Each structure stands twice: as C-alpha cells, then as structure tokens.
C-alpha cells in the first residue's frame, strides 16, 4: 500500500518540480534581461510558453523515434528528480531514492539525453543530428571532473547512497562537502555548468548557429514535453548537486534556498561568458577543473 | 593615362575617347570586332588584369545595345571602360570568357535582363536572379513594368495615393544634373 502513497508523493514532487523549474527558467530570463539593461519578460513567461505549446493545434512527426523521444526526455527528467532525495529520510520527499544510488542516478541522467538525441537524429535535419554529437562530446568533457568529484566523495564517505551522503554532511555548515572537500566541489560545480549547457558551454543548442540544436524539428506538444522534461531535469540536477555538495536539505525552505543559490551560480556565470567551441570546452574541462579536483582526490586517495 | 590611350590608338581604331569623372578613369569606344583584341592587349600588355564589370545599356533610340567592359589595373590603379555597340535587333555577341573567366556571371546577368546572348558562354541560359522568367527581358526599355506588374500582381484598390514615382525620380535627377 505504501507504494501508492509513494506514487502520490512522486506526482506531487514532479508537479512541484515542474513548477519550480519553469519558475527558475523565468527568473533566469529575467536576470539575463536585467543584466542586458532590458526589462525582460515576466518571471512566469515560461508557464505561458508551456501552455501555448501544449495548445498548439497541429504537429508533425518524422517517425517512431521522433515520436517517442520527448517521452524519453520527460522520463529521464522525472527519473533523475525522483531518484535523488530532496529531503533525505523524509517519507514524502526522499522520493524513490531507495531504488538506487548515485551510480544509478549518474546513468539515468543519460537516459533522457540519449532519447532526445535519437529523436533529433530521426528528424532527418542535419542540424539536429549535429547537435547531439556536440552534446555527447561536451558530456565527455564535463563528466570527467564530475565523476572525479563524485568518486572522491563516495570514497571519502564510504558510500554511494545519496541519503547516506547527505547524512554524512549534517551537523553544521562546515560539514558540507563544499567546505570539507573544497577542490572537489569546485570541480563538480564547474562540471555542473557544462551539465546545464548554459553559456559558455551552450554549443549544443547554439541558438542561431545550428537553428536550435536537437529540437529543431520539434513543435507543439512534442516540444512542450521536451520543455517539461528539461525543466524537471534541471531541478533534479540542482537537487543532486545540493545533496552532493551543499549538505542536502532538512526542510523544503532549505532545499529551495540551496537550489536557488546553485541556480544563481549557473545563471550569473552563463551571463558573463561567451560561447566555447566544443573542443575548447572539452579541453577546458579536462584541464582546470580536473587539476583542481585532483588535489582533493589525491588527498582522499592517500588517506 | 593619355599615353595609354595614345598607345591604344596607335594599334587599334578608337572610335571615341572621353575622360571620366576621375583622372584615372577613361572611356573609349572601339569597334565591336576588335574588342577581344583590345581587351587582350590591355590585359597582357597594359596590366588591366581585372574585369570589374560588364554592363549593358539599352539605347532604344539608336536601336543599339551598348556593352561596357570596365577594367581595372591594380598596378597603375586606373580604370578603363571599353565600350562597344551591338545591333539591338540582333542582340548577339561573343563571350570574353577566354580572357576573363569572371565574365561568365556578368554575361549571364545581361543575358537574363537584356536578352543579349553571348556565343561561347556555356552557362548563359541558366537563371541568374529571376526564376522561370518567360516574358521579354525586363530591363529592356520597351518593357512596360507597370502594366506587367498590374496585370500580374494586381493593385490594391484602396485610397492609397498613387504617385508617379518615375516622374518624381526623373524630375529629381534632372534637377540634380542641372546643378
């Protein structure tokens, strides 16, 4: 019976995550506009966009994979959000984190990306096919420092369970991994920039350069699903990073604050840097964050 | 520049010569049969390596097309316009592709817009700007664009004031010339 409660809670989390994610997107647009000296759209603009997209009247499909890809994308987003505990050991908000641990989450994160890549490729548009290759290449770039920090933390705390990781960071702000293992955290947080594909690592979508990247051929309901998936995925990743580096959360307010701080970090970085080319991004990730992270990594290795 | 013209005159028959609006711009008119020789001479001996443009003028009054070959010398930094006249009823001429490969696209343009065909240019019948144009070449002066436009594209039947733009423009340019 408890599983149905879980499902109910999960639904709430997903809907909440979606709302939060859309709001963050709106805020991001607003911040960007203000930095550029504009008024910018309303913070709720993303909600409006989503509603509009859902209520488009027609849509086109290029094939089965094209059709299923938005579902994969959404599934990937939901999976990541639901597999990380927002509040560890909370019946409602630890989600399905009993289903797997950090390794599962790491691999599940790829699920949506791969699905979207396949759909994009199925559309037959050369830009859509080009974008995933960029994305995967960039992924190979940022995953290295990210894995470095994750493995470092797992070894340091002797666990790959996210709940246990959160539990290990309790007891004051100085117990956070951000302060316990600052170099690992820096590497991880830089990797996070790449993971969000915001500037300077926005070569995947690269608006105006390769149309809009993978979803070039997507429209209407398909696009709304992708949009949804992306928002939820974004929130899921913020929660993951919060659990990894910022000590998790004990209540919702804390979770909101911490994820919002991470969000601001991404937004502000992305607004002041121009775009890297793929190989520049890869080289960047394989040098600075890696070297920085290795300091702590070796410290843990020796210990 | 005058020396150049004299040298040309000593070899070829120059029908008319005229200084342009700059010191380094001269216009000469030659016989149409000697054009290739002139261009070849200019290219090989006088360093006019660059064919900047081939243009066409419809002298409907004289029943002639004027073809102007605008040359440029990088060494001397001089422009020379060589012009010839061809019969308007029989708009045919030979290509200068063998001298200046870039003439291909100019000749294609003239072919499309004036209907002058250039013997020896393999691509002259391809579309240049217009797709599937089937009427009289549009830049000929006996082509009535207004009539064509109205017939083909219609006209907005509204209270927009219609001005004879052509008249205004000609008035304006006349006035400007007079100054």
């Amino acid at each position, binding site marked *: 019976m408890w599983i149905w409660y879980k499902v109910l809670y999960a639904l709430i989390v997903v809907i909440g995550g979606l709302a939060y994610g859309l709001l963050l997107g709106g805020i991001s647009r607003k911040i960007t506009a203000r930095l550029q000296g504009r008024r910018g759209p309303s913070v709720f603009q993303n909600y409006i966009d989503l509603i509009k997209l859902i209520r488009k009247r027609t849509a086109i499909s290029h094939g089965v994979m094209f059709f299923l890809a938005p579902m994969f994308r959404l*599934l990937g987003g939901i999976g990541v959000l639901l597999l990380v505990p927002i509040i560890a050991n909370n019946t409602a908000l630890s989600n399905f984190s009993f289903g797997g641990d950090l390794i599962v989450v*790491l691999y599940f994160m790829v699920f949506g990306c791969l699905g979207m890549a396949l759909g994009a*490729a199925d559309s037959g548009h*050369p830009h859509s*096919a080009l974008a995933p290759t960029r994305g995967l290449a960039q992924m*190979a770039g940022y995953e290295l420092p990210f894995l470095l920090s994750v493995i470092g933390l797992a070894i340091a705390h002797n666990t790959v369970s996210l709940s246990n990781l959160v539990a290990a960071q309790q007891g004051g702000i100085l117990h956070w991994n951000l302060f316990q293992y600052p170099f690992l955290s820096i590497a991880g947080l830089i990797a996070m920039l790449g993971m969000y594909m915001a500037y300077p690592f926005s070569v995947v979508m690269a608006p105006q350069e390769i149309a809009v990247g993978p979803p070039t051929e997507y429209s209407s309901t398909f696009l709304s699903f992708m949009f949804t998936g992306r928002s939820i995925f974004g929130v899921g990743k913020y929660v993951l990073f919060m659990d990894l580096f910022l000590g998790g959360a004990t209540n919702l307010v804390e979770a909101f604050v911490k994820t919002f701080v991470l969000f601001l970090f991404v937004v502000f970085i992305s607004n002041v840097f121009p775009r890297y080319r793929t190989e520049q991004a890869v080289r960047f990730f394989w040098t600075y964050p890696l070297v920085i992270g290795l300091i702590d990594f070796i410290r843990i290795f020796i210990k | 520049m005058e020396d150049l013209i004299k040298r040309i005159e000593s070899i070829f028959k120059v029908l008319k010569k005229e200084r342009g609006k700059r010191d380094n711009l001269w216009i000469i008119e030659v016989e149409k049969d000697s054009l290739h020789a002139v261009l070849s001479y200019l290219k090989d001996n006088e360093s006019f390596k660059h064919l900047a443009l081939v243009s066409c003028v419809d002298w409907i009054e004289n029943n002639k097309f004027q073809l102007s070959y605008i040359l440029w010398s990088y060494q001397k930094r001089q422009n020379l316009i060589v012009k010839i006249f061809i019969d308007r009823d029989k708009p045919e001429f030979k290509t200068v592709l063998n001298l200046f490969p870039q003439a291909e696209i100019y000749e294609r343009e003239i072919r499309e817009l004036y209907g002058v065909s250039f013997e020896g240019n393999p691509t002259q019948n391809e579309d240049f700007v217009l797709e599937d144009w089937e009427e009289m070449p549009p830049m000929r002066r006996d082509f009535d664009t207004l009539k064509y436009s109205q017939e083909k594209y219609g006209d907005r039947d509204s209270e927009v004031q219609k001005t004879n733009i052509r008249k205004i423009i000609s008035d304006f340019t006349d006035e400007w010339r007079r100054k």
Partner: protein
Amino acid sequence: MVNPVVIIAVTLIAAFSIGIFQFLGKKFVRGVFWLTILFDFTAILSIAYGFLTKVIKAPIMVKIGGFPPPIGINLYVDQLSAYLGVVVFFIGAMAAYHWINRGIDDPEPKALVLMLLLLLGSTGMIFTQDFFNLFVFIEITSIASYGLVASKLDGFSLEAAFKYIVVGSISSTFVLLGAVLLYKFAGSLNMLDISNHINKSMYSGGMLIIISIMFLFGLLIELEVFPMNGWALDIYQGANPAVVAILAGGIVKGFYLVFVRSANYLKFPYLLKIGIIFGLATYLVSQFFAWKQKDIRRLFGYSSVGQLGLLILAGAFYINGNLTGFAKKYMLFAIIFFVLNHSFSKSTLFFLADLFGKRNIEEWKGAISQNKFFGFLFSSSVLSMAGAPPFLGFWAKLFFILAIPRQYFYIVVLVLIGAAAEILYYFNLYRIASENDGEVLDYKGSIIPSLFNVLVLLGLAVLGAYKFFTITGMEIQNAKFLAFITVSAIAVLIIGISRIAQWILALGMLISFSYHLIRNQNFVSVFNIQSFFVILVLVGAVIFLFATYPLSKKYSASFYPLFIFTVFSMVGISVASNWISLFIFWELMSWSSYLLINQGSKKPAWIYLVMSAIGGYSMLAGIKLLSTGSNLIPVFKASAIAAPVWAAILIFTAFLVKMGTAPLHIWARDAYGESPDGFTPLLSGVLSKMGVFGAILTIVYLIPHISHSNIILYGLAWFGALTALFMALLAVFQEDVKKILAYSSISQVGYILIGIALATSLGYSAALYHTVNHLIFKGLLFVAAAGIIYRTGTSYLPEMGGLIRRMPFTFLAFLMGIITLAGIPPLSGFAGKWLLYSALLEKRWMFILLIAMFASIVAFMYCYKLLHAIFLGQLRDKYRDTKEVPLPIVIIELILAGLTMAVGMKPSLILRFSDKAIKTLGFSNPGYAYEGAHRIVSKFGYWNAYFMAVFAIGSFIIALVLFFLVKAKIRKVGQLDIGYAGEVPDSPESVHFGYDLYAHMRRAVRVFIYPHVENSYRRIYQGLMAFVDYTRRFYTGDLNTYALWVIITLSFIFYILYKGVF
C-alpha cells in the same frame, strides 16, 4: 626381411645397368629405375615394419665379406636408420615422379642414374658402421648431388652446383681428415669399436678434440649451419625443385642422422654447446632472414635451414643434454616428428612451388584461392610446417619444449621467438597466396606426389596426436575430444557441396553435443567456473551459428568445419585440466579462427595470427617455467608451487592478446572488422572470453602464489582501465560499423579485465556477469550488423542512414543492444557496471574507477554514432527497397534483445550461475547480498533492478498516456519535409549528416587517438625488416666468402675451445 646390403647392391647394379644399357630406350631406363626404387622401398619398408612390429628385436648387423665387426666393413641398421630409409626412399620416389612428370632434365638416363646414386649414397651413409666407409658414401651422395643440382644446366643451377662442389669438397676434406686421424688415434674405423675404446677423459688430451671436431665440422658444413650455409640456400634457390625436394626432404636428414650418431659414438663432450650455439644461431638467423625474402624457393630454403638448426639443437640435447626419463623420450619423439614433418611438408612445398612456377612471392596472388585442391595441399603443408595443431609440427614443437630442461629456459624463449618469426613469414606468403583479386592462375603438372605427401602428413598428424597423448599420459579424454573435434569438422567438410546441409549438420552437432552435456549428471551437479564457460561457449555458438544461415552461401566449404573446430576447441579450453591441454586447445582455437578470419580479409588475419602466435608461444614459455624436473605437465592446482613471476606474466600475455588489451590490441580492429560477418559475433562474443577464462585461471591458480601479486593485479587493472578508455575513444572515430563494434568489444573486455584483476568475489561477479552480458549484447550488435551488411552491401557508416524505416525490428534490437552497451539502467548492461563499480569502490581503486566510469561516458559517443549513422537521418534512394534483415537474424536479434530485457529486470538470471562459479574459485559469497527479492546490496550502495525496470516502463507509459491526452493533431511527414531555411532539399544525401560525426571532438583529443601503438609496432617491424634486409647481405653470393666463413667458423670453434669457454 631383406639384407640391407642387398639394397645397396641392387641400386648400384641398377645404376650401372642404366648407364650401360641406356641405348635400350627410355622405357627400359625408366622401368629399371622404378623397379629399383620399388624394390628398395619395399625392402627397407619390410625392415622398418619388422622393427615396428618387434619382429626384429635387435639392430641388424651385416658383416660384409664375413669379417666380424672391428675388422671388416659393417652395415648396422637400427630402428631409426630403417625409418629414415623409408622416408628417404619415399621422398626420393615422389621427387623422381615429380621430376619425370615435370619434364626431366636431359639427358634423362644420366639424371636417373644420379638419382639412384644419391639414394644409394644416402642409404649407405645411414646404414654404415665404418667411418671411412661413411666418408665414401658421403662422397657418393655429394657427387650425385653435385650432378643433380647442376642438372638443370642453367645459370642458377650451375652456379649453385659449383658453390656446392667447392664447399662440399672442403667439407669432405675435413671428414676425411677426421676419419683418418681417428684411425690413427683409435686404430680402428668401426664406429662401435671406436666408441668402446674412447671415453670422455680422453678428450682432455686435446688430440681427440681436434679429430672429433674435424670430423663433425665436416658434417656440420653439410648440415648447413649458420655461417656456412650460403651454398645451401643457393641450391634451394637455384636447383631443380625436385632435386631440392629430395635433398631437403631426405638426404639432409641422412646427414643429420650421421652427425648425431657420430657424435654419439665419439662421445663428443661439447656437442651440447656446439649444438646450442650453431643450432640456435642457424635457427634464429634463417627464420629472421627469411622475412625479407621474395624468392619463394629461397624462402623455403631458409625455412629448411632453420629446421635443421632446430634439429641439431634437439639432437644435441638428446645425446648430450643429461635428459632423464620422460624428457629423453620426449626429445626423441620431437626429433622424429621434426624430421618426418619437415621431410614431407617441405618436399610438398617444393613440389607445389614448382607446379605453380612463380618465383616471386608477390606473384603468388590467388594461388590458393583459385585452385581449391592445390590450395588444400599448400595449406596443409604450410600449416604443418609452421606447427599448427593438430599437425605433426605442433606435437614436435610441444615435445621439444617440454623436453628441454628448465635451466635452459633461454633456449625455450629463443626457439619460440624463432617459431613466431617462422609463422610471420610463412603466413605472409599464405596471405598473399590466398588473396582473391589476382587473375586466374593455374598450376601445371601432376599433384600426385604432393597429394601422397600430404596424405602421409595427415596420417602423421593423427600419429603425432596419438603418440603425444599416450606418451605424456595426459587424460585420454583430451585425445578423445580432439579426435571428436577433428571427425566432426571432417564430417562437416565432406558434405561441403551444400552450405545448407553443412549448416544443418553443424547446428545439429552443436545442439546434440550440448544436449549430451546437459544430460550428463556429473556436469550439471558440479557447476564450476569451467562449466560456466562451457555453457557460455555452447550457447553463444548455437546462437551465432543459427544466425549464419542467410550468410552461408557467400562462404567457402571450409567455413563451417572451421567454425565447428573453433567452437569445440573453445570447449576444450574450458574443460582443460592442465596447462598443456589448455595450450593445445588454445592453439587449435587460434589457428582455426585465423583460417576463418582469413576468409574475410587477409592482412588483418595475418596480424591476428602473428599476435596469437606471440601470445600462444609466450604462454608455452610460461608453462615451461611452471614445470619442474619430474613434472613436465603442470596441472592448474599443483602449479601453485613456486610459480615465478615471469611464468604468470608470460601466460597472461596470451590471454591479454586474445582479450585485445592495449597495447596488444593492434590485431583486433581489423580482424573483427573484416572477418566474415557470420564469424565476427563468435569472435567478439565468445572467443575473446576465452582470454577472460584464462585470465581467471591464471589469477586464481598462479597469481596468489607469486611475490608482488598485488602490484601485478593493480597493473593489470590499469591495463584494463586504459584499454577500456582508449579503445572507446578510438571507436568514436571509426567510420565502419564493425570496426566501431570491434573497438567497443575490446573496450568492454577491458572492463572485464578490471573485474578479474580485482580478484575479489565482487570483482569476479562483475566480470562473469559482464562476460555473459557482453556475449548477449555484442553478439546482438554484430549479428544485426551482419544482417545490415548483408542487405545493404556495405559496412561503411556514411553510406547508410535512415534504415529504421526499412528495418524496424533490427532497429529495435539494435537500440536495446546499444542501451545495454551504454549501461543505461532498465536493461541488463547496467548491472555489470554497477557490480564493477561497487567492486572498485570496495577496493578503493579510485583512479581506475574514474577511468572506467569515464570510459563508459565516452562509449555513449560511439553508441549514438552507430544508431544515428545506420538507422536515423535520411534514407538513401538506393536503400529505398531494402528489406528487413533475413528472418533467422531477426529471430536471433529479438531473442537476444528479449534476454537483455529479462536480465535487466532480473539480473539473478545470470548472477545465480556466476555465484556458483565463484564459489568454486574459493570464495564463500559472491560479494553482494540480496535484500528482499530484488534489491542487491554491496558494502557501498544498493540497487533494485526490478524496481528500476518497473519505474522506467511505468513512467514511460504514464508519459505516453499523458501525451495522447494533450496531443495536437499530428501528421507523419515525408523525409525531406524539414525546416531548411525555406529551401527544398534536393536529395537525402545533401541533408544527411553521417560522415565524421565527431570532427570537433577530434580536435580536442587528437593526441589520444593518434595511432601511437600501431605506429610503434609498425616501426619495430619495419626496423626489424630493415635490419634483416641489411644483415642478410651476409650471404653475398660470393664463393670466396662462403669458403672464408667455413674457415672462420672452424677457427672460432678452435678459439673458444682454446679459451676454454666450454
């Protein structure tokens, strides 16, 4: 039984009568010749048969003129002489037949007389008991050979003959000097008599040393040892091949027997040293000089010389090596086998070289592939010559290596290096000959002698195997199994008219064998690591064999026999109980798989073979290190005692080669990529797993008992990790579907290697799970790729695209395979990754964990590339009417895809087997635990496969339902209906993005994907080649130099004797 002297007398009379009565005509001459040969052969065969059946119990002693031994001249025929006589006469008869058939050199009667004299001389040489008589017979043989060599009367043969005459004269001078000085020293010429008179202490005097050396040195020149063998090579190159065949195949063996026997009678104490120095030098030098050789006859000449060197080495060990017990017996059989093998196969090769007529090996293109029967004979001889199991050469080499005492390990190493070098150039020739693009070439003349020779070779192979298993006393089940394999393969080969029948028979055999195995209670009840791999092999083989059905008509008749051979030899590997039987089946597997790959593409197969040979021989060297004085056949468990580090490393090399671990991976890309499509799944899915099996055996049985085992294991893990990473990175930049999958395979096996190297129960769990899983998904991918290549006719990725519209089922299966490969949760791939990572975490190998995880991220790149370039994007016009891949392949694909799903939901389907297997490795638990029904817990984390699958599928369905609730009006549009800046694309090709998908990434990782390793190998190879090319100029072709080297060698021998190096 005939008196041996009759043979000599009859031959002599026949020779003279031919000479005198040649005016009676050709028929008479040939009649007399053949009658003589027939008589001699029958006679000597009867003697040999007498020895064989033990009718004749003691050596025959013929007293000529009735004088007793020390006084008269005696013939002394023992077992070996008789057998060798049979061989000599057989080869002689074959060579004569060949010669006559190919058009004998004029004048024919004289040539036949010389032939008879040659046989006579060599027979006498083998039989005689008298040193001076020996000299006479040697001279008869030599003069006959001079004449025969020169008989072609062209520039080459005359030149060779003259060189032979000069060097031969010098040699006989030494022999004569030795003989007469011996007479002076011992007062007798009878060998036995002398042998009884001298003893080793006499050698301290100095005189006897000089005498023996004189005598033996003369024989050594005739035996073509290294610095003095230029003339021999010239003969091989220049003389008539029929003559060369009898010389190399028969006469030289006579000289060898004489040499060994004389040394034995003389009790020459330095034979071992001389044998080692000159035998090894000859062997190695000629094996390497042959690399650069373009003339096929000289190439065979180098090989013959090399074999003689090996024989000298073996003989020296037999006579003078202090071998005891089994080792002595082994060495004797090694010598006999070497002689037989070399005589028959080399003479066949010379016959065939003559039949084909081309001298330059580059012109041999198409020789095998276009003449099937010729090809069969050629392949058999070459395989036998190079020591491929189950031919005689293999058993000879095995006996030889086993017999050499352990303190002479460097000899083992050098001999094996030479053997590898031999394989390198022999199969370079074989590669050229089996190329398929040459114009139609035919051979001229009769192949009957070659056929006889090869039939004898095949018979000898059986004999060799029988003798090997009986003498070594290895379990009879191995022999039975080997016989079973051979018989099955031959059975499949025989019905080669119809591929379908072959397919059915092969499949039937595999299935019935598996059924038989499962019915065997013993096998099921004792489930251990070996049963695990037997089941793996059989299941994989049945599945992949089934999928070859639509492809079968492309393949030659030998495809299915070799397939069966490969599969059963892998079963043999899996059930092996000692290292030697493991090695035997390992070599069987390598060679049969080489022949299979060679049916696809030649050069990669050659590289594969050379690498396999290096691996296999290093394994043999390692096994040699494991053997102790009395225990020549190391058993797995007993080998625990005092195993040196090098043994483990050497044995491991073989497995690393098969696993394609960097830097030994260079064969893998092309061998996988260009082998026949029906075989590649087996190669990747099962054959590379034999490396895994071997690695597990090594780590379980060997590594724990050596020092620094931790460092070795850690190093292995690093090898695995770097392989996993860099092969994945290389795969990203391939443009050929099978080559991507090839690199991917190596990369995945790298993961398995990490798991094994962990040597913890969780590590083994991960490795075994991933082994099975890799079989499933990589088999799936390769089978699907085979189907796609079958339908589209290309494996080049940029040529494909959009095939999802034509092959939906294949796409589905392929997608499943790719998701499994990428290790994304709901399917089975993730479990292996999770187990491996947990195991690595448990052992705190952080850097390896980092690299391994990162490698799987890199893998996504080529996963996407495969899916995109084959199935997605724009469909080309030429594939518009392509059909779905053939039904058997679809069935296999869907079965395998279903398996990945099932295993993904319930990993215990595989894990329960691996758990059992791990328990037999000495672990009490598999390293993880079940919590509840589905949740698997390690020390670090937990994971619920069932939940993940339900969660993913459930969420997916919910998303889909949601989508259908809100969806807009959807139209399925055409393939070129894309938003293309208002333009209409004019063709699918113009908007398909399929070539060099990761050009941008290439700029970032250029230094990592540059083929450093390949280039290093190439440089080493080219450097060796250049070195060989330079040093082989040693054979200047100048007669004076040859003579000079004789003197220098003699001086060298005396010098080192004088310095007391011995």
